[in-house]
């Protein structure tokens, strides 16, 4: 296929004419370095506490549910109550991340929590969120050994533990945080509400192939950046 590669690139260069010199490429190289942002919607132009409120408001319009708790210690009770309320089994398949493992799950002995990827037989998956974007109520999930991607999509119910201090205004702030955290992970999943489809007569149905429910447990850690 190297023939194909050469020929495609040659066609592109020919179409452009003479502008293939180093100075011309420097313009593009510089753009990659600068990572300039476009217009950021004014709606995210507000303080940290107001951004948290905006995130919650937006997530709710996307048919997600949000539970605000004061600290990680309050998460087991909040999750147990949510599962009971929704008539779901008290069994969680959770991401093996330090943040999730550090939650005092033993405070709720009735909750069974196992850690690892999903094989498709788990009713409820629980993951952390790398960040969240207030602009559209969107969660930003980062794959890795501590966050298997299958947990985001296979279980019927996806519970996400999000720290308020990880809520940013626009997507671009999320990218900045991700770059600061290291190399691009295999998958970055932006999740806005539960799975949905309108493929049958344009009527919106939740739970097409991914989760039917998206529940966000928001820890108000007050650790505003």
């Amino acid at each position, binding site marked *: *296929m*190297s023939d*194909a*590669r050469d*020929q*495609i*690139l040659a*066609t*592109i260069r020919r*179409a*452009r004419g003479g502008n*293939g010199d180093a100075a011309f*490429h420097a313009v*593009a*190289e510089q*753009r*990659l370095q600068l*990572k*300039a*942002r*476009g*217009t950021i*919607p*004014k709606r995210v132009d507000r303080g940290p506490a107001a951004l948290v409120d905006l995130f919650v408001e*937006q997530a709710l319009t996307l048919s997600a549910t949000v539970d605000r708790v004061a600290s990680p210690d309050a998460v087991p009770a909040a999750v147990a109550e949510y599962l009971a309320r929704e008539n779901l089994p008290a069994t969680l398949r959770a991401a093996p991340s330090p943040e999730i493992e550090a939650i005092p799950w033993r405070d709720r002995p009735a909750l069974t929590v196992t850690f*690892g*990827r999903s094989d*498709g037989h788990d009713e409820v998956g629980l993951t952390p969120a790398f960040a969240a974007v207030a602009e*559209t109520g*969107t969660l930003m999930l980062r*794959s890795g*050994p501590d966050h*298997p*991607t*299958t947990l985001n*999509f*296979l279980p019927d119910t996806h519970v996400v533990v999000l720290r308020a201090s990880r809520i940013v205004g626009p*997507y671009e702030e999320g*990218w900045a945080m991700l770059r600061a955290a290291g190399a*691009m*992970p*295999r*998958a970055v*999943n*932006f999740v*806005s509400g539960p*799975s*949905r*489809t*309108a*493929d*049958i*007569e*344009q*009527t919106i*149905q939740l*739970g*097409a*192939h*991914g989760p039917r429910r998206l529940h966000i447990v928001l820890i108000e850690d007050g650790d505003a950046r």
Partner: protein
Amino acid sequence: MEATSRSFKDNARHALVDPDLQQALARMKAGFVVNRAAAVARLPEFDKLRDEARAIKDHTLEHLDFYLERFERQVTAAGGHVHWCRTADEARQAILAICRSVDAKTVTKGKSMIGEEIAINDYLEANGITAVETDLGEYIIQLRHEPPSHIIAPAIHVTKKQVADSFYATHRTLDAGRKLDEPRALVDEARAMLRQSYLDADVGITGANFLIAETGSTVIVTNEGNGDLTQTLPKIHIVTASLEKIVPTLEDASTILRVLARSATGQEFSAYTTFSTGPRRAGDLDGPGEFHVVLLDNGRSALLGTELQDILRCIRCGACMNHCPVYGAVGGHAYGWVYPGPMGAVLTPTLIGVEEASDLPNASTFCGRCEEVCPMRIPLPKLMRHYRERAFDRGLMPPLPRLALALWAFLAKRPLFYRWTVGLGVRLLALAGSRRGRFRRLPFAGGWTRHRDMPAPQGKTFQQRWDEAGGAR
């Protein structure tokens, strides 16, 4: 797929009298059009973002070779592979070779217009590999052995009753007594059927809404979550993408994403936007073991530097067809190939030849709504006009309209003679139509008057009245 764009007029005639289709098209107008308008109204920066989105793509196309090479380098650095393909056939062969390398029996597919363009399903089936579409709309039309009729809502022409019939006919485990008369029941039935396919598949094929040069990432934008299951569970993930999908940075993708979903479904952001970079990493508990990008040209690079380059900005949102009166009347199948509506009327002659598709650029009233709503500000009417001219130059127009145009051109180039002839014609028509004030039938315009009356002129031409009213005073 076999193109039937040559028989556009026949296709359209059938579409106009298809009651199911007409009902579906009416629903589309009430849904997409209204929802887009509401989403745009909620974002005051929308038009500014459109300008920026256009500038991003124009810049990228100007430096396309640079960004494609950088993309390839980054994919390779992340442990993936890029396969450059000049033609649909090269892309099909590349995909088959990857599937054969793991002796694949079944392949799951996320929705991909490139998949349709290269007709990959038929090719895989012919080579003994089962391809299962997993997007609900694509799955429905696959069961019905139909092409998509809309680029983001492939089964928009299908009623729920027809979906139920397809499921009863093909789902062997489905009890014939079970009721499938509501969308909820249909979605659940498809969900249950497809769940096992994801887990069984050897290879997952998705499309890409964007390729990111900076990171070597591919991006899919979906609502159902099927694309993510398709690319996460099998051993191999193949991304099919045409080369103009590339943008420089994550920031550039973010800017365009702000106009994409709003223009498409009227959502602010789709449920799932996923950036994939290479295969499973050391320590990962899931994800594909191999990551391949099949990068397709198929005639696109030849558009660079020509009048048609603007169509390469298209991000496949579907807004142009949602707002098109012609698409709204005849639906997507009438266009006869993969891409319908105004963007299809430009892209189809580009990809399969103006000889095959000379009717499509004429399937427009030139009302300009497509250009008005296009998030990438593609001058679609201008590009359609380009193909009309090309079809005329190549003598693809039937003799009668050709003669009429030649006559009109003769007159238009002689202003005095034009005024005299038109003045005479208008007086004669006014005289002939004075009793009724309209014509039921006109010679040489039977097609037009079959569906409406022609109002009789009032005796004076526009130019005469213009002069009387003081003209350009």
